[in-house]
């Protein structure tokens, strides 16, 4: 060819178009970042004022929370205890059931059963939490109360945590199942080839190989439980308690309990005037809660990175 091939294009127009795309996509990504930053600022500013009015030692170490009745006391410990109590109860339900559900779906269920069960689990995840709350209050509490020897208050931590556990089962099972599915079949075949039974393969090979994902699912589900609000507001009651004795600790499940989230709802919906110390306590509790879930999510990331198996 004697003529040079024409490879020029409409460069100027293309350049403008490409940079417009960049700006639009960046702005979309920026929305969530800016919102997060805004929330952090909105939490920190009232918290600083609050800590000027209530000593840090009273807030972090106080075992009483009584924002409405004079003299007011703002100890976050009873609320943190309530949150941890209910999260612990939820974990006792969701971790074993969620993991075994994942194991069943990933290793045991036939294609047709899987096709039915997975959407059902997703429905469980889609039920509004307020519905779970009333389910706990109206059905689960009377059911548990019917057990001889179990004295339950109308509002109690037990039924709230059981129902919350059921609510987070799909989180545990779906993330765990994804990570079990990611275990290559070649590893299963290796075990079968050595005369392993299905149980040997599932429990002895698949679960350890998928451990990072399983552990992440636990922590993400727990951080969801810590932040969960409606179930505890509806079913667990509004009595901030901090047990002073071991028997008090055991008894905590059966009586009305206030969590950090339900305290925030109470502070925000009561007729406390804005600009009071009690109102600002709402933000201090919110920030504490935010830090707790943030730390859990960071731990989850660290676990996933530390125990991730590289199969190549």
């Amino acid at each position: 060819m004697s003529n040079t091939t024409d490879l020029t294009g409409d460069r100027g127009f293309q350049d403008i178009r490409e940079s417009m795309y960049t700006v639009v996509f960046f702005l979309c990504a920026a929305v969530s970042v800016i919102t997060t930053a805004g929330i952090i600022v909105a939490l920190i500013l009232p918290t600083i004022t609050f800590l000027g009015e209530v000593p840090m030692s009273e807030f972090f170490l106080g075992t009483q929370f009584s924002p409405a009745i004079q003299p007011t006391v703002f100890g976050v410990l009873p609320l943190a205890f309530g949150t941890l109590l209910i999260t612990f109860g939820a974990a006792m339900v969701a971790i074993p059931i969620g993991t075994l559900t994942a194991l069943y779906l990933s290793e045991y269920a036939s294609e047709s059963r899987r096709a039915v069960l997975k959407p059902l689990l997703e429905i469980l995840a889609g039920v509004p939490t307020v519905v779970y709350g009333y389910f706990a209050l109206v059905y689960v509490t009377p059911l548990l109360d019917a057990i001889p020897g179990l004295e339950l208050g109308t509002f109690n931590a037990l039924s709230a945590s059981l129902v919350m556990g059921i609510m987070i089962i799909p989180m545990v099972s779906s993330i765990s199942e994804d990570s079990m599915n990611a275990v290559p079949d070649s590893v299963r075949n290796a075990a079968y080839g050595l005369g392993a039974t299905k149980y040997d393969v599932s429990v002895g090979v698949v679960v350890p190989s998928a451990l990072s994902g399983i552990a992440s699912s636990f922590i993400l589900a727990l951080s969801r439980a810590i932040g969960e609000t409606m179930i505890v507001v509806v079913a667990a009651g509004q009595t901030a308690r901090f047990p002073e004795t071991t028997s008090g600790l055991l008894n905590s499940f059966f009586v009305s309990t206030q969590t950090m989230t339900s305290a925030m709802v109470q502070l925000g919906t009561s007729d406390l005037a804005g600009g009071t110390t009690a109102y600002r306590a709402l933000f201090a509790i919110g920030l504490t809660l935010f830090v707790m879930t943030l730390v859990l999510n960071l731990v989850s990331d660290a676990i996933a990175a530390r125990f991730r198996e590289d199969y190549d």
Partner: protein
Amino acid sequence: MSQDTSSTEAEREETDQLITTDPGRGGLSEQDNTSTVMTGDTIIQSRNLDVFYGETQALQSVDLDIPENQVTAMIGPSGCGKSTFLRCINRMNDLIDVARMDGELSFDGKNVYDDDVDPVTLRRRIGMVFQHPNPFPKSIYDNVAYGLRIQDRDVDMDSVVEESLKKAALWDEVKDRLNESALDLSGGQQQRLCIARAIAVDPDVLLMDEPASALDPIATSKIEDLIEELVEDYTVVIVTHNMQQAARISDKTAVFLTGGELVEFDDTGTIFENPESQRVEDYITGKFG
């Protein structure tokens, strides 16, 4: 698996008399077959073995006698059914939902597809090494010990692990880091670890499905040396794409060609120097496949 010795003997005699290939297909002479059976006792025997994956037929009426304590190689182009045959022996095909088989395949005189055969027990006697190294994401030690642990064997674990790693020619490279993850080993080391893992449970037979195809030439030659040593204690059945490899390491060679047909089975020397079938000669000389 309990063995009825007399019936085993009877079957073996029957084997001696039977013509091992389908006479209609015109592969081997009767003479060659007799010698095939005489060189070592048959440990694995298939008769009219058909395998289907859904509608696709992967093996067609395969008759094959695999001798004890020898290396039997299976060669043939991709999709010829040689790996399928291997996976029938320890019933790994059971794990594939659409796989279906007909005919008979016996191990030590017992049809492994009989109803009373537990594939778990069978696989404890027939070990397998796969195409791609597939160590567990556990330590080197735990990989080798795995089979013994699931079988609850009452053995001196440390010494079996050491012995197996020595047999797999890996001990010197890993003896100082037995507690490190097996996934940190090189591909060739991982494959030798998989061999150590398979022989730790002391099987009768080792099935190897292209065990060196994912490895570099140096690692490949280590695996080949190893196979030649292993055959003193084990029966080795190896699937390979590499004809030179089959020629180097095997005593017997089975040639599968397209459609899941076993075309010829004989001493490796005969297959490579003077095959009966023109198709086998064409395949071996590279005119086809």
